C-alpha cells in the first residue's frame, strides 16, 4: 500500500484496487502520461511502441497496455495502419468535455458528501498534501486530475466515476496543450476546501466550490492562446 503515497504511482483511474499487484504498470502509465502533459511527446510527434519502450525502459507489451488505456481516455489515438499519436482536442471538444464533466462531477461530489468515508478522506488529504509539495516544484496537472478521480470514487457510483475517468485525462491534456494560464490559481487549496466541505457533508458548499473550479478551467481553456505561437522546446 505504500506505493500509493508517492505521487509517481497514484492511480489515475478510479479503480486503484484492481492494480495493486502491478505498481510498475501504474508507474509506466504515470511516466508516459507525464511525458505527454509536459509535452515531451507532442501531438504529431512520431513514436512507436518500440521507441517508447526504449525511452522508458519497458517491454513492448507494457507500453501497449498503457497506450490502450490512454486511448480509452482519448489521450492517445490509435488508428489502423497508423502510428499511435497524441490527441489534440480542439476548443469545441474541450467545451463539450468540460460540460459533460460538470454534469458528471457535480453529481459525484454530491453523492460523495452523503458518504464521506474516513479511509478515503485520509487518502485524499495525503494527495492534496503531495499536490501542495509538488506545486512548489512545477506544474501538477496529472496529480490534480487524480484528486478529482479519487473524489469520484468516494461517490460509490462506479459507472459514473468510470465516465469521469475518461473526461479528466482529456481535460489535463487540454490544459497542457492550450498552455492554460493556471499558475496564479492554486489548485491544491481549492481541492482542500472541497475536501473539507465533503468531510462536513456540506454538499451545497462542495458543489459550489467545484462549480467555481470548473468555471475557472472553462475560462482558461476556452479562450486559449494558440499553442503554435509558443516557442516550445521538445525533449
Amino acid at each position: 500500500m505504500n506505493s500509493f503515497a508517492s505521487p509517481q504511482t497514484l492511480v489515475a483511474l478510479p479503480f486503484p484496487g484492481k492494480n495493486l499487484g502491478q505498481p510498475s504498470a501504474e508507474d509506466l502509465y504515470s511516466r508516459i502520461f507525464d511525458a505527454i502533459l509536459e509535452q515531451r511527446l507532442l501531438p504529431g510527434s512520431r513514436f512507436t511502441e518500440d521507441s517508447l519502450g526504449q525511452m522508458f525502459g519497458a517491454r513492448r507489451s507494457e507500453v501497449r497496455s498503457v497506450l490502450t488505456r490512454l486511448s480509452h481516455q482519448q489521450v492517445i489515438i490509435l488508428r489502423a495502419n497508423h502510428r499511435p499519436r497524441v490527441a489534440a482536442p480542439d476548443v469545441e471538444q474541450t467545451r463539450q468535455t468540460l460540460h459533460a464533466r460538470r454534469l458528471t462531477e457535480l453529481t459525484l461530489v454530491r453523492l460523495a458528501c452523503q458518504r464521506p468515508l474516513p479511509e478515503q478522506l485520509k487518502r485524499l488529504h495525503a494527495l492534496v498534501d503531495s499536490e501542495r509539495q509538488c506545486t512548489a516544484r512545477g506544474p501538477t496537472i496529472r496529480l490534480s486530475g487524480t484528486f478529482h478521480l479519487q473524489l469520484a470514487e468516494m461517490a460509490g457510483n462506479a459507472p459514473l466515476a468510470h465516465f469521469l475517468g475518461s473526461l479528466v485525462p482529456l481535460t489535463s491534456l487540454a490544459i497542457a496543450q492550450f498552455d492554460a494560464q493556471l499558475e496564479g490559481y492554486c489548485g491544491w487549496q481549492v481541492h482542500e476546501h472541497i475536501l473539507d466541505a465533503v468531510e462536513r457533508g456540506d454538499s451545497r458548499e462542495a458543489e459550489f466550490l467545484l462549480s467555481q473550479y470548473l468555471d475557472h478551467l472553462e475560462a482558461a481553456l476556452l479562450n486559449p492562446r494558440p499553442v503554435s505561437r509558443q516557442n516550445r522546446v521538445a525533449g
Partner: protein
Amino acid sequence: MITSSTVVNSVVEKLRAALARGQWRSGEMLPGQRELAEQLGISRPSLREAVIVLETLGLVRSMPGKGVVVLEANPGDSQSYDNAVSAASLEDVLQLRYTLEPFIVGLVAQSISSKEVGQLRLTLMDMREALEANDSEAGVNAYIAFHEELFTLTSNPIFQSVVQQTSNALKQSAEVLRNSPEHLAERLEENEAVVRAIRSKNSAQASAEMRRHILREGQRMGIELNIPEDNFGS
C-alpha cells in the same frame, strides 16, 4: 479525434460481444476475412480496421499469412467498464442515465438531420408495434434500440464511451424492463415526447423530456433518484 468510423465501432462491439460470449475461444482462429466480412455485412477494409482495434485491446493477434488468433481474455483495461457496470446497482445506472442522457439528447437536438429523425421514429414504431402485439420482449428490444440509435447520433467521440456505457446499462436493466410490460405504453409516450422535441430542434425541451422520462422510469422501478434541489449549469 474520431479514431474509426461508426461502422468500425459497431463491428468492434459485435466482435467483442461474440468473444465475450465465447463464440471463439482463446487459441482459435477467427473465420477468414472474406467470410467474416460477409457474415457481418461489411467491407474487408472495415473488418481489417476492426481487427486492428481488437488487437490493440489485446483480444486477438494477427498472424501474417495465417489469420487472426483469439487471445486469452484478460480482465484488465478493456473490460474494466464491464466490471464497473456489473457491480453497479440499478440505482447507480439510473443515476448515470439521469446525469448524462438529458445532456446527450440536448446535443443531438442541435445537430440532427431529418433523415436521422426518421431513423429514430422507426424505432418508436417498433415499440408501438410491440405494444399492440403485447410482445414485451420485442418492446424491450425496441426501447434499447431507440436509445442506441439516439446515442449513436452524438458526433463527439468523447460520448461514444457514454453511448456504449448507457446501452450496456440499459441491457443490464433489460430484465427489469421486461418484467414490467404494463409500463411500455408510458415509456413509448415519454420517448415520443423526447423525439418531438428533438425534431423541432428544441434542445432544452429534449433534455427536459429525457429527464422526466428517467425520473418516471425510477418511479416505476421504485427507485428514488438522488437529484439536486437546484440544477447547476444545465
